[in-house]
C-alpha cells in the first residue's frame, strides 16, 4: 500500500517535469478578452484621465492642456460642490442603511419562521428590476398629493401629519432617493448575509450556550466575527455602487430641486452631454474615480484586518 503511494507520487513528479511546457495553457486563450478589455475599458479610461486636464469642448478646434483649471472650477462651482457633498452623503447612508436592514432581515430569516422562503423571495425581488423603472414607480409613491402614494398610506393609518412633498422639498429629496435605493437593494445584502450566516457551524452556538453565553454574547462573539467577510463584501459593493448613483436621480429629480440631489454622475452627464464640456466632464469622472479607489482601498484594509478565519 505504502509502496504504491510512493510509486504514484514519483510518477506524478515525473509527469510534471516531463510534461513541463506542454501542460501550460496557451496565452492565446486570453488574447480576445484582453484585447477587448484594453480597447473598451483601459484605453478610454486612460484617455479620459488625460482629457480631465484639458479645455476640450464639443466646439473646440484644438485641445490644450490647462493643468488643474478643471479641478479648480469643480471646487468653486456651486453645482459640482453640491454634487460632491451629495455623493459623499449617499455613500455614507446607503451602505449603512442597506446593510443594516439586510442584516436584520437575514438574522430574522435565518430562524425557523415558517414563511422564511416566501419572505426571502419577496425581499429580494426588487433587486432584479430596472433601477429606472423602480424610480418611476417611487416618483409616483412620493408625489405631493395628500391622498396618493406614501402620503395616502400615512393618511390611511392616521399619520396624516407626516405627509410631505417628498421629492419637492430640498431638505427631504436626497433622503427620499436614498430610501428608494435601500428599498430596492436591501435584499441583495440580505442574501449575502444569509449565505454568511449559514456557513457558521451550529456547534459554535451550542458550545457557547453550554458555556452560558446569552443571545447578545453569542451574536457579538460568534456571529459578528464570522460574518466579517460578508460584511466586507457588502460594504465595498454598496459603497462603489452608491458613489456612481445615476439612474434613480435622473428619473426622480434630475438633480433638483435646485442642486439638492445632484450627484457626481448627474453633473458629469449634464456637463458632458448637455453642455459639451468634455474636459470638465472628464475631470468630474476622474474625481469620482479617485474617491471610489480611495474608499474601496480603505474599506478593504480596515475590514479585511477584522476578519477571522475559521
Amino acid at each position, binding site marked *: 500500500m505504502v509502496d504504491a503511494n510512493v510509486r504514484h507520487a514519483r510518477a506524478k513528479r515525473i509527469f510534471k517535469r516531463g510534461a513541463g511546457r506542454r501542460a501550460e495553457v496557451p496565452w492565446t486563450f486570453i488574447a480576445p*478578452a484582453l484585447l477587448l478589455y484594453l480597447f473598451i475599458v483601459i484605453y478610454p*479610461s486612460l484617455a479620459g484621465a488625460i482629457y480631465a486636464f484639458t479645455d476640450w469642448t464639443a466646439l473646440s478646434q484644438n485641445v490644450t492642456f490647462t493643468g488643474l483649471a478643471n479641478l479648480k472650477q469643480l471646487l468653486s462651482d456651486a453645482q459640482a460642490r453640491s454634487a460632491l457633498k451629495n455623493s459623499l452623503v449617499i455613500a455614507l447612508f446607503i451602505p449603512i442603511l442597506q446593510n443594516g436592514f439586510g442584516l436584520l432581515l437575514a438574522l430574522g430569516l435565518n430562524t425557523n419562521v415558517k414563511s422564511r422562503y416566501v419572505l426571502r423571495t419577496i425581499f429580494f425581488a426588487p433587486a432584479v428590476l430596472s433601477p429606472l423603472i423602480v424610480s418611476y414607480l417611487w416618483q409616483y409613491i412620493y408625489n405631493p398629493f395628500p391622498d396618493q402614494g406614501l402620503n395616502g398610506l400615512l393618511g390611511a393609518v392616521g399619520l396624516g401629519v407626516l405627509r410631505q412633498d417628498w421629492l419637492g422639498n430640498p431638505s427631504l429629496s436626497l433622503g427620499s432617493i436614498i430610501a428608494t435605493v435601500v428599498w430596492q437593494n436591501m435584499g441583495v445584502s440580505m442574501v449575502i448575509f444569509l449565505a454568511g450566516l449559514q456557513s457558521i457551524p451550529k456547534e459554535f452556538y451550542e458550545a457557547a450556550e453550554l458555556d452560558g453565553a446569552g443571545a447578545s454574547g453569542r451574536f457579538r462573539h460568534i456571529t459578528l466575527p464570522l460574518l466579517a467577510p460578508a460584511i466586507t463584501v457588502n460594504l465595498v459593493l454598496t459603497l462603489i455602487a452608491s458613489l456612481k448613483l445615476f439612474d434613480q436621480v435622473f428619473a426622480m429629480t434630475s438633480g433638483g430641486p435646485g442642486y439638492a440631489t445632484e450627484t457626481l454622475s448627474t453633473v458629469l452627464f449634464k456637463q458632458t452631454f448637455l453642455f459639451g464640456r468634455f474636459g470638465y466632464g472628464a475631470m468630474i469622472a476622474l474625481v469620482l474615480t479617485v474617491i471610489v479607489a480611495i474608499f474601496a482601498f480603505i474599506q478593504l484594509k480596515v475590514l479585511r484586518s477584522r476578519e477571522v478565519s475559521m
Partner: protein
Amino acid sequence: MSRRYTWRTFVLEVALIAFALLFMFPLYVLVVQAFKPPAAVAASPLGLPKQLYLANFSGAWSAAGLGPALLNSTIITTCSVALLVGLGSLAAFVLARRQSKLSAGLFLLFLLGIILPFQLALIPLYQLIKSLHLLGTYAAMVVFHVGTLLPLAIFLYVGFLRTTTRTYEEAALIDGANHLQTFAYVVFPLMRPITGTVIILSTIIVWNDFFTPLLYLSGSGRQTVPVAIYSFVGQYVSQWNLIFAGLIIGVAPILIAFFLLQRSVIQGFASGLKG
C-alpha cells in the same frame, strides 16, 4: 437553527410578515393603478380596481414601442452574455492555471475594472465608437457590455477554477486532447455552476442598463426597454394608468424569469458576490 417553534418565533414571524406587507406597498400601488381607467386612478388612488381595465396595457404597448424594445433588449442581452461567458471563461482558464508574475499582473489589471467607474471612459469611448461608425448598432452595445463585465466574469471564473482539481484536465491531456479540446469538453462543463452565476448576474445588469443604450443607441430605433420606458414616461407625463401598465410590461420578462429560477438567482447573487 434547529430549535423548536416557540412563541418568540411566532412574534418574529408576525413582525417579518408585517414588514413584508409594508415593503410591498409600492408594488401594490403599481399593480392596482395599472388596471384602472384614467378617472379612477386619481379618484381612488389606493383602492382595488372595480373591474380590470386592460386598455392601459395595449395602449402602453403600442405607445412606448415595447414590442421592438423587448426584441432589441433580448438580442443585446443574449449576444452580450454569450460572448462574455465564452471570452471570460477562456481567459480565466489561463489566469487560473498559469502561475507566473505576468498572469498575476493581468488578473489584477482585470480586477481594476471592477472598481473603475465607467464614466471615466465615457467620452473617449463615445468618440471611439463614433469613429468606427458603430453608434446606434447592436455591436456597440455588445462590445461595451462584454468589455465592462469581463472583470466580474473573470473574477468569478478564476475564483472557481482555483478551487477545482486539475486531475481531469491532466487526464485529458495525457489522452492526447489539445488545450482547446480539454477546455471545451472537460473544463467548461465542470464550470457549469459558476457559469450559471455569471449568466444570471450579467443578464440582470445588461437587461436593466439604462445609461449606455441612452447614449449609444439614441435616435437609432434600436432602443432597449429602459430607454423606451424613459421616452414613454417623458411623453405621457402624469398619465399614471398608462405609465404603470408600461412599467409592468417593462419589468415582466425579468420578473417572470426570476420567479421561475429564483433559487438559482438568489444562490447566484449570494455565492457570486460573496467572492
